[in-house]
């Protein structure tokens, strides 16, 4: 992985000041087994978290992290094994209040109700009542104000929760968790939707709370964050506990090896460029401008892979979405393989020869209840028969080919996409993008929420596709996605600021994405 990014922030505060080693652990789970039908989600897993530490839990998708979290937060009972809090056995599953006094979890998915105010969200189902047994909104507001200022969260309690940013929402959820008396908080991928500065503010907040005696279990896919903020790390793989060690004593390579179960393969072997300058450029963008970006100009040759990097809000996603017609630009033009599709029209962009993987597969990628075959052929009805009639046989043949080509793990093309794992779902989306042999392939965050193996497979497919003369645009902030690019364009605050050729160092790219000049 990378080193050096965000190294500007101070090292984690020493967590062991005033701590007696003999203290019982805040939470200890031993011998946890959890089965869902035939699959074993946890197989004798264990974790021990000491007071005041920030403990990282890492593992690939399907390693059992989420299941452990639901066991630790009392959402599911383990089939075997015990959980103790501060030495006492865990409360019964139905005693939600007792669980909430011990542990709280800030999930990726918000548990804030958008239509209610912040104050009401904080005191939902436990509002202060006045003398007439009706809710006293005044004391609810005051209580919320007190609570928020105690933990120095600067949010107006009267704000409707829908107006909060992701970051504010997380702080409100943390404050709510603390108000139940819990001093052990699980953060489930808290940084996934935050940009760089917001992540730093979150980390400052975590360190603050840590000094006040709050213990954290921190789950993240980003290893550098673990090195920055955590004291201890526990690795799960294939439903088992692999190791627990102080972060400072565990080199990155060993951590990665523990996660993948193999020595970290050096995927950096040089990819021969497949750029073909003799053919019309796959994409040429000139002077593109809109709210989120300004004056964007670049070209992608046939067979070239170009990365479009940038932090959240830098405009990279918007540019990519404009190219495929999900948005219309205010000015400038997009030319796909020599044709100029009507701006803001996805069908026109597809007809011009584009294929794309949208940003959020759950939102825009697939129809969950439709079959793999239907999803994969959604954008290519003309391949399924003429005159507006679809041939089921042809569809299934086409889908079977895609399933084989992309190694989608499924019993057959009739399975609904919602029944697949994240990685395989993304493969279906990729299959659709490739269905019509595109001249230009646009990928937005193509490996978000995808496990390591599927990730490598998907990226390998991209290289293969490029080798056939397709131009590829990858809009992502995931360094692994960008590694194979012939060059990476970095966007910062809506403009393309830097162009980096292949062979870059992680810290160069991250610095450019954050708008920092390392050599200044």
């Amino acid at each position: 992985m990378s080193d050096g990014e965000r190294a500007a922030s101070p090292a984690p505060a020493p967590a062991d000041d005033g701590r007696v080693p003999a203290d019982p652990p805040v939470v200890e789970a031993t011998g946890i087994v959890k089965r869902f039908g035939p699959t074993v989600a946890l197989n004798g897993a264990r974790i021990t978290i000491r007071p005041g530490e920030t403990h990282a839990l890492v593992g690939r998708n399907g390693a059992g992290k989420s299941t452990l979290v639901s066991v630790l937060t009392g959402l599911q009972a383990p089939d075997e094994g015990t959980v103790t809090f501060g030495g006492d056995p865990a409360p019964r599953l139905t005693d939600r209040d007792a669980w909430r006094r011990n542990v709280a979890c800030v999930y990726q998915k918000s548990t804030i109700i958008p239509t209610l105010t912040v104050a009401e969200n904080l005191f939902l189902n436990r509002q202060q009542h006045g003398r007439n047994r009706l809710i006293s909104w005044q004391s609810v507001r005051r209580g919320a104000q007190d609570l928020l200022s105690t933990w120095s969260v600067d949010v107006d309690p009267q704000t409707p929760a829908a107006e909060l940013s992701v970051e504010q929402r997380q702080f409100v959820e943390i404050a709510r968790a603390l108000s139940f008396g819990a001093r052990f908080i699980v953060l489930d991928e808290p940084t996934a939707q935050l940009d760089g500065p917001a992540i730093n503010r979150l980390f400052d907040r975590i360190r603050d709370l840590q000094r006040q005696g709050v213990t954290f279990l921190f789950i993240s896919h980003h290893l550098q964050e673990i090195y920055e903020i955590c004291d201890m790390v526990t690795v799960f793989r294939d439903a088992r506990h692999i190791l627990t060690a102080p972060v400072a004593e565990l080199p990155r390579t060993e951590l990665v090896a523990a996660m993948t179960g193999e020595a970290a393969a050096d995927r950096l072997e040089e990819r021969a460029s497949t750029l073909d300058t003799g053919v019309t450029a796959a994409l040429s963008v000139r002077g593109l401008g809109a709210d989120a970006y300004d004056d964007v100009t670049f070209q992608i040759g046939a067979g070239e892979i170009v990365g479009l990097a940038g932090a959240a809000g830098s405009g990279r996603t918007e540019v990519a979405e404009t190219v495929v017609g999900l948005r219309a630009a205010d000015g400038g033009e997009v030319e796909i393989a020599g044709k100029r599709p009507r701006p803001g029209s996805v069908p026109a962009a597809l007809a011009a020869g584009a294929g794309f993987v949208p940003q959020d597969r759950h939102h825009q990628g697939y129809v969950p209840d439709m079959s793999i075959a239907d999803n994969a052929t959604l954008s290519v009805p003309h391949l399924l028969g003429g005159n507006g009639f679809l041939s089921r046989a042809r569809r299934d043949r086409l889908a079977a080919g895609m399933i084989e080509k992309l190694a989608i793990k499924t019993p057959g093309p009739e399975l609904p996409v919602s029944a697949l794992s994240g990685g395989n779902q993304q493969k279906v989306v990729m299959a659709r993008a490739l269905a019509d042999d595109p001249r230009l392939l646009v990928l937005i965050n193509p490996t978000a929420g995808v496990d390591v193996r599927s990730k490598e497979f998907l990226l390998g497919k991209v290289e293969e596709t490029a080798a056939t003369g397709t131009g590829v645009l990858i809009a992502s902030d995931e360094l692994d996605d960008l590694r194979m690019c012939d060059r990476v364009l970095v966007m910062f605050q809506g403009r393309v600021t830097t162009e980096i050729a292949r062979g870059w160092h992680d810290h160069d790219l991250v610095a450019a994405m954050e708008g920092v000049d390392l050599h200044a």
Partner: protein
Amino acid sequence: MPETVLAGSAAPDTAEPQVRRTALLGGRIPLARLRDLALVPAIIVIAVVGQIVNPVFLQTDNLINVLQTMSEMALLVLAQTMILIVKKMDLSLESTMGLAPGVAAWLVVPTGAGHGLGLLPGAWSIPVTLAVGALVGVINSLLIIRFGLNGFIVTLGMLIVLRGVLTGISGGQTFFQLPQSMLYLGTAEWFGMPASIWICLALFAVAIVVLGWTGFGRSLYAIGGNVDAAKAAGIRTDRVLWTVIVTGSVLAALAGLLLSGRLASVASAQGNGYIFTVMAAAVIGGISLNGGKGTMFGAFSGILLLYMIQNVLTLGGVPAQWIGALNGLIILVALTISRITGGKVQE
């Protein structure tokens, strides 16, 4: 970047680019609250127009007439509003409104007069009406909550079934000679105003308080806004949903009782087609079909506005044959206006 503001350690930074919320009276009343009152200006405008069209409009008798004719429909709006707030929908309310008093009349009205069975004394009519309402609510809840069926389709089915049952027991005819107890609520006057108006206003007042100032009421909004989060907050969501759906059906039965009392009969088509006006009134009143949004006061002003406009049209001498077309048009116009004032896309 439109960054968020958080006082990381000490006092908040100066010149924070926070999104300023529109507020009046020095920030005391946020605009969101004012939206509840969005229809009040419209109601005033209609009142003025009505007075110009025909000076009868603002006379007490006419206003009482408007309130009384809308009281039954208003109770359905009250029921539907609760149900919409928890993100469900009950189409069968209109049939319940006919069937519940229909069953009571069937059991109570003496034989020889139409299809009455004369099995029970007259005093039973009110309990029977309410019990039928509750039973319908229980069946709906069982199918929707317990068996997880789609609420829209379940209540659409119930709408047809209940209407059919009423037609069956009445032989498609109208029950007359209702007992005194059934007539009372629809005809009595309390303190110079029809009892049905009092009942309607009182129930809305109770609903406003319950929805705004009790834990139960707030849990309705929580469930409609995000049911998983409501569960995580320890709300017994299923129990709340049961209560809401059953209460809604009982209210519909009560509305039917008021209407039967006022008309001194139960027609086999009683309540037929009401549900469309009910839904329209709720949406005009600011209730979101996506759940979690809207207030009882808004819903009340929605139905009041619709009935006032109808009254003005009648007073203005619009031919009765055209009232239906105009009603539909009014609903569309009112929706458009609330889209403009509300500023948000209605889904």
